[in-house]
């Protein structure tokens, strides 16, 4: 047991939590925006996966990590827009549409990977680029804090900035006000001339961009290659994190960190000789438990209201 706590209370563990939280956080913030507009994006998992491959492919063929990043974001944007077209315009059920995007991503990424490399497992034969890690000046020299905060991938810092950015967007800008109004009372928004379709498209597109950043982090930051199914449920975990965060930026961030910690824990416990198969279920178990606690509380509150 001692060794367990020794593992948790280290700067390494906190550093690793921040690292693995990054992709979950991106997707969860994306989920937050689209949910606020009342058009949930259930395709985040698949969109992340496609963007992860997109980043690898674009960076490998241009030799530029930055263009790779742009490519990943573009893939996220386009696939979310396609999903938006189906759900908003053709009235495809949001859940079925999301499921379809995930299937598409599962098969499509392997298809493309094989087409480009002749390998169905990983992209290791593609000379893809990695986004840089950044040492924060001054902070890096502070003991403990420096070890935790400095030296992360640039996208981790982008994610942190985006927490504030999303908060600002939703709470300070006209666009944010409209997004929230459309999600909360469509008729009210319509009655003052807000274009509901446009706002929802925008929210979906933004959630795609965020998932794209998350995907880029997976294949160009977390590791330096693409492997099949590498989003590994993070998109779904992000949906759970958004729900548990009760639609607030802070809550979403905190629950993302919680799930990130569960993920980091599973990475760390591996070092202690606990079977990796069992460890791998920790993040998913944490998600189920988190969702249940959230749902039970919600039910209680609803009952009180009635």
């Amino acid at each position: 047991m001692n060794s367990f706590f020794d593992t948790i209370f280290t700067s390494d563990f906190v550093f690793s939590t921040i690292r693995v939280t990054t992709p979950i956080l991106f997707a969860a913030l994306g989920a937050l925006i689209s949910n606020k507009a009342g058009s949930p994006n259930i395709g985040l998992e698949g969109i992340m996966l496609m963007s992860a491959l997109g980043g690898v492919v674009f960076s490998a063929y241009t030799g530029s990590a930055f263009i790779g990043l742009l490519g990943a974001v573009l893939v996220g944007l386009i696939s979310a827009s396609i999903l938006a077209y189906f759900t908003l315009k053709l009235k495809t059920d949001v859940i079925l549409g999301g499921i379809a995007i995930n299937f598409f991503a599962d098969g499509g990424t392997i298809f493309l990977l094989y087409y480009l490399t002749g390998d169905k497992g990983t992209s290791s034969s593609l000379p893809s680029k990695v986004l840089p890690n950044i040492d924060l000046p001054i902070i890096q020299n502070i003991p403990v804090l420096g070890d935790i905060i400095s030296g992360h991938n640039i996208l981790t810092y982008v994610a942190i900035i985006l927490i504030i950015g999303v908060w600002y967007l939703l709470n300070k800008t006209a666009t944010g006000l409209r997004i929230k109004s459309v999600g909360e009372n469509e008729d009210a928004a319509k009655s003052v001339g807000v274009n509901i379709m446009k706002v929802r498209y925008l929210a979906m597109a933004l959630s795609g961009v965020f998932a794209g950043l998350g995907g880029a982090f997976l294949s160009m930051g977390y590791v330096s290659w693409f492997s099949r199914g590498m989003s590994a449920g993070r998109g779904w975990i992000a949906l759970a994190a958004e729900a548990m965060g009760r639609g607030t930026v802070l809550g979403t961030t905190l629950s993302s960190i919680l799930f990130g910690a569960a993920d980091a824990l599973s990475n760390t416990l591996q070092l202690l000789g606990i079977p990796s198969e069992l460890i791998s279920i920790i993040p998913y178990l944490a998600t189920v438990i988190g969702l249940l606690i959230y749902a039970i509380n919600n039910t209680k509150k609803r009952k009180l209201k009635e």
Partner: protein
Amino acid sequence: MDNYILELKNIMKLYNNGVVANKKVNFELKEGEIHAIVGENGAGKSTLMKILFGMEQPTSGEIFFKGKKTNIEGSDKAIEMGIGMVHQHFMLVPSFTIAQNMILGMEPKKGISIDYNKATDMIKDLIKVYNLKVDPNMKTEDLSVGMKQKVEILKALLRGAKILILDEPTAVLTPQETDELFVQLKKLKENGHTIIFISHKLREVKSICDRVTVIKKGLTMGTYNVSDMTEQEISNIMIGRDVVLKYDKRKNEKGEALLKVENLSYKGIEGNYILKDINFTLNRGNILGIAGIEGNGQRELISIITGNKKNYEGNVFLGEKSIQKLSIGEIKNYGMSYIPEDRMTDGVAKEAFIMENLIGNRYKSSELNNGLLFDMNKINKLSEELVSSYDVVCKDIEQKVESLSGGNIQKIVVARECSIDPEVLIAEQPTRGVDVGAAHFIHEEIIKLRDDKTAVLLVSADLNEAMELSDSLIVMFEGKIVAYFEDVKETDEEELGLYMLGIKRQSEEEIRRAIDEC
């Protein structure tokens, strides 16, 4: 002619589903007046209002704004012309502050963010000018109904409205809030605004409006100076029957009480009483009608009786049993049938076959089951019988309900609910939106049930229907019973109109007869 700010000429509106909501409407609005539009449910008021606010386009007819012919293509255009609307169901986002709700869609900006200082200033100015006291930083969901309405009015004013349309603005208000609203409306009028006041309540029309336009069955009956008319006279123009239905009803002996409602009260989400101290008894072999303008608590009353709402005060007894603890299924098993008001959402599964919809209240019965399995022969036979005896026009019983016309769908609901010989039948607007032939058929079915000793509770906003079908009659107004007639022949439509519109009410003793004498 030139002093009209807005003028509608020969407006006709035909909806895609073939309903003519406005046949020929003429309406002239003078600048600076408070102009009432009154009419029964379905008379075409709301369509007229939608046309005025650009939410619907007239099929034919002309609109003149300040003497110039115009089209109001959308709400944007209406707002631009200076027309504002206060909807009956408030168009507010609950989690927003008052300020946020007011500026939505026209946010003042500083850089990329909203300039809340400027927003607050804009609102404060407005509050000062119109003396409507609200705190712009309060959350909308915490506001009282009256406050929300003020916010709606301010929202319209902020958008530069000179003409304000208020759709039944007092329906949700307490008497004090109503008084306050009227003070504000007068103030607005003094400041040069023109107000269109849509209402059922003639007392209010009398007290605040300058002129009144009466609409009946899609036609304008005329525009009058309010000071020239009594409430009684307006009521007579508004309500009144042209076609009189006649049914041969034999005199029926009233049987024992099957449904008793005692001191029933019910609070809405806003915390106001939607039902207050309702008492009545429903007897075997009797049709008890509930007349009243819609939205006076009838829907909530039926929801409670059918077991859909439980958090009420008082008691409802089905036979000897309180329904408080009974599930909807248990209430049905007692022998209660229910024809719901909204057949498409509550009455049928529209994507299911006719046959499947017909067995909704008896699919568990031993007659239709053969051990574990349905007895398909019997189900088919029953369905065929019902379809033919209730005269449902269809190709076969394995046709989806959604492909039938409204009248035929309603006949399916009636066939299902009436053919089990219920002890109690709750019929809520049973012939709404149904053609004359089907309506006639449904009425006769209801009378047949009553003759066979079913207790029938009939809710109808259609006075014609309520008067012809009922043996006894209750009138509801603002969540209360305001009149009770042991024998419907004691009264006439003119008198009922006065009760329905809240002009008159019986004494407590007279109303108590609804429970004592039954």
